[in-house]
């Protein structure tokens, strides 16, 4: 949790900039955006900032020069962190070299989680369907169900744009995040603040209001808890419109390193109030037909 304070200070003292960025994001992220969009070159995002804050433009260029050539955007519905993370998590397993091993690791991690949810008092009937949808999707990478195709980029994309399946996975991650926070209150309690009024909050109240509730945006605490529960590494690039004091423009990454074995992190892009997925590729082929096994 060391970098929590660092993140807070990153935004304080520049509310105008924050508001400006908020306004830009509201303009550019319409509510009818798909839950998950196809991969697009960073130039698309850059074009939206060209007439605005030039530091944003330079930060986008910095990301491209450092290998982040593509962006996969998500709907700005408050679930975007969980949805981005879930999509990138499954996609990375699907595209990994040792698919069998990584599917097995993910499934065994997920199969240990219901115990956490039960321990903090969630009823099985509340979460079992959500977990089944998530596990089935990952299992389909190696083992298609009878009559259904193996998981491909296209199937993954369609699944995450199907509101029922997509929101079920988001909900499971919310409940898992909540369970992780409730199970380690001593780790999280000092960081539980009301996101609007900044007052300290009790663990249960924080979880009910800002973790379990649909559409409530994730902040550092939720991200720490979820990466810990899933045992993954996530890097979040903060596009904040700030140049360093010496005028040099870079992008700060906040790293959540909770993988138990060495692995490449999932990369997300944060602009105040919204998360998208970063990618080293700038396009994908979604036209391919599902190969039936």
């Amino acid at each position, binding site marked *: 949790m060391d970098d929590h304070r660092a993140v807070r200070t990153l935004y304080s003292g520049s509310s105008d900039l924050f508001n400006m960025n908020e306004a830009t994001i509201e303009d550019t992220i319409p509510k009818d955006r798909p839950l998950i969009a196809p991969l697009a070159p960073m130039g698309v995002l850059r074009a939206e900032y060209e007439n605005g804050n030039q530091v944003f433009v330079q930060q986008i260029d910095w990301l491209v020069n450092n290998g982040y050539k593509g962006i996969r955007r998500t709907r700005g519905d408050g679930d975007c962190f969980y949805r981005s993370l879930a999509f990138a998590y499954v996609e990375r397993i699907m595209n990994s070299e040792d698919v069998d091993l990584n599917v097995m690791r993910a499934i065994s991690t997920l199969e240990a989680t219901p115990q956490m949810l039960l321990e903090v008092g*969630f*009823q099985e*009937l*509340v*979460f079992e*369907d*959500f977990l089944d*949808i998530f596990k089935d999707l990952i299992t389909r990478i190696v083992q298609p169900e009878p009559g259904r195709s193996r998981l491909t980029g296209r199937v993954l994309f369609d699944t995450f744009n199907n*509101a*029922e399946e997509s*929101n*079920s996975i*988001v*909900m499971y991650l*919310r*409940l898992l995040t909540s369970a992780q926070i409730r199970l380690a209150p001593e780790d999280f309690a000092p960081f539980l603040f009301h996101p609007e009024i900044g007052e300290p909050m009790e663990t249960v109240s924080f979880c*009910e*209001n800002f973790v*379990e*509730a*649909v*559409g409530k945006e994730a902040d550092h605490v939720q991200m720490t808890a979820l990466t810990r529960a899933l045992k993954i590494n996530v890097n979040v690039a903060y596009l904040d419109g700030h140049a360093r004091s010496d005028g040099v423009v870079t992008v700060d990454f906040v790293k959540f390193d909770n993988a138990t074995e060495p692995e490449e992190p999932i990369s997300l892009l944060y602009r105040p109030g919204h998360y998208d997925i970063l990618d080293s590729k700038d396009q994908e082929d979604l036209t391919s037909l599902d190969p039936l096994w």
Partner: protein
Amino acid sequence: MSTNCRRRLIRDFKRLSTDPPGGVSGSPCPDNIMLWNAVIFGPADTPFEDGTFKLILTFDESYPTKPPTVKFLSRMFHPNVYANGELCLDILQNRWSPTYDVAAILTSIQSLLHDPNPNSPANAEAAQLYRENMKEYVRRVRATVEESWLDPDEQEKMKEDGEDGNAS
């Protein structure tokens, strides 16, 4: 209809019928599992005591990732209930989570009855009386309690009579 939604509603019903929380009841309409009738009994030691308030819950296939819409059929006098019976309750709006089932929704509404939130008034008059004139607030609530015992036709007639009375 989505399988998840149906399965969840069936389990909500099982829970509500085998382990019912005190003072609430509910069940799906015989020909439509997406439409539920419910009754909340006014909590003891509150002005709502002895009332049998009827509600209707409408689910769509996004349940349980989205909340149902909930509406009182009985006429209510309460700071957080609109004239059309819709209510202002955080868990049904911006604080929804699938951890709430039908039983939890109904008990939350029941506790809202004796613990109104005057900061988000849906009925300004009720909110004002609740704050400033408890005696009159109680009198107005008691009138809705008595109405709640009547069957819906009689209630409808009383509403009409009431409106005529106001007009003359």
